[in-house]
């Protein structure tokens, strides 16, 4: 009885080992693919002396007398005169962090224009979206044409099906 148990245990150990070694051989990696173009680095917020910071909560009494939920932060960048207000979070600490990051992004856009991180990210997003819409358009056009072909008759169907992808490609090339 006991020996039986040991045997099972040993077998399971061997099996376990085999499994783990198989996994290590497969080498699961998390590095990103090489062909993805690297994004520009997140811009650093400007030094604290370059902007003034105000916490907006209206005038009048504060402290225990009222119970404010506003934790808005307003930054004013002195050299450019850029003003921005952040009231996204309930936590002022988080709003301050976010405001500094947003200011850095805005300045980056002003300074580098289309090469800034925000612009590059936006461009990538736009491209992805446009290719997605193009794909879906193509798909639905083909479906529609297939439908039309079925209605006309089985003879024509093959022709239409072969023609459309090439036609689409051709039109892309011309663009």
């Amino acid at each position, binding site marked *: 009885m006991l020996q039986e148990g040991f045997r099972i245990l040993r077998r399971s150990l061997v099996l376990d080992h085999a499994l783990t070694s198989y996994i290590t051989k497969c080498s699961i990696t998390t590095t990103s693919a090489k062909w993805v173009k690297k994004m520009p680095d997140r811009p650093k917020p400007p030094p604290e002396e370059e902007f003034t910071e*105000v916490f907006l909560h209206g005038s009048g009494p504060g*402290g*225990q007398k*009222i*119970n*404010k*939920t506003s934790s808005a932060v307003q930054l004013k960048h002195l050299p450019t005169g850029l003003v921005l207000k952040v009231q996204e979070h*309930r936590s002022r600490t988080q709003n301050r962090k976010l405001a500094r990051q947003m200011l850095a992004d805005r300045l980056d856009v002003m300074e580098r224009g289309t090469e800034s991180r925000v612009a590059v990210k936006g461009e990538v997003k736009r491209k992805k979206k446009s290719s997605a819409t193009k794909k879906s358009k193509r798909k639905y056009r083909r479906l529609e044409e297939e439908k039309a072909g079925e209605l006309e008759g089985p003879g024509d169907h093959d022709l239409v099906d072969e023609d459309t992808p090439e036609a689409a490609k051709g039109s892309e090339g011309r663009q």
Partner: protein
Amino acid sequence: MPRLPHSLLLKAYNISPLLPLVLQGTRSLPSAVNELRWLREHVLKRNKPTPTTQKELLRLCKRRSYSEPLQYILGSQPFGELNIKCRPGVLIARPEPEAYTTYLAKLLIKGSKGDRGFEFDERKPLRILDLCSGTGCISLLLHSLLVKRFPGVQINGWDISPNAVSLAVENLKRNISKGHLKIQPSQKPPPIQFDQVDIFSRFNRGQKKQLHCDIIICNPPYISQKAFLQDTSRSVRKWEPRLALVPEVEVEGYDGVKAEDVFYRRLIDLHTRFARSKLLVMEVGDDAQALRVATMALQNELPSRRDTVEIWRDGPELRNGLEGNGRVVLGGRVVGVKGMGNMRAVVVKSPDYVWSKDGVGQASR
């Protein structure tokens, strides 16, 4: 309280049908928009809206329309990096204590670098007493900010309300489990402790031991009976505990002290005579009270130690070109005023132990 104009309610309704409800609680449109967004985030938690969640959201908006504080509805309030649990019966953590507590921690950390700020004997652990601790927010924030520089820091929180003490203990556990506070449960003695103590009573042996500390920080009740009826917002008046807002203690021997300043007189006594602490930070209600308390602190110091008094505004770190660091003269003594906004805290420092290169130093320059 003035009625909300129909035009404003209609405007709110056009943004969202739920907004007029929230507007009744907040009384201003921009903050209503923000609060409705937070309520929605609280209900949905990144899920898609369903009929059940919409019903729940409507229920919460109705609660807000009876001017119940948002923090009681959501059950929490961010405080620095921490998350403080809130529930009826205990005063909600405000942004002002967050500002001056952060500033105090900054000065303590800076001081040990010999730059400008406060300096303490580094061989002994730093001991802090947080009086009228409420949710425990000040104690917890101080620990989270100071533990790196002062690993042996010891903080005791006292409050008269058992409800507040139990909530403070819950908040301690909550922030440890969320990883905001670096405390091992086995740590002895525990770095943060909360006890139920009446600061006007006689202290027992254990309390006297805790009283011998380096820093006393306190956010006492400071609103007068009249101001409670006139100046406080409806949500504060209706929902928050009066015990934490209006001081109602009769003390013999405190002649000429206004009813709303009774706690400050006691605190100054504790600081100079009983605790012999090096630093006392007290939150105050407005500019007039700040000046009264500063005068009181200057009058009640012991002849053997000349304390210096400073006043911090709402944003002690903020600097405005026009309204920089100022000073006021009270009874022939100069009191430095730091930062921007309303006067919010009176700070008493003992030069025997603590020194600061800015602040009062600036006034003598």
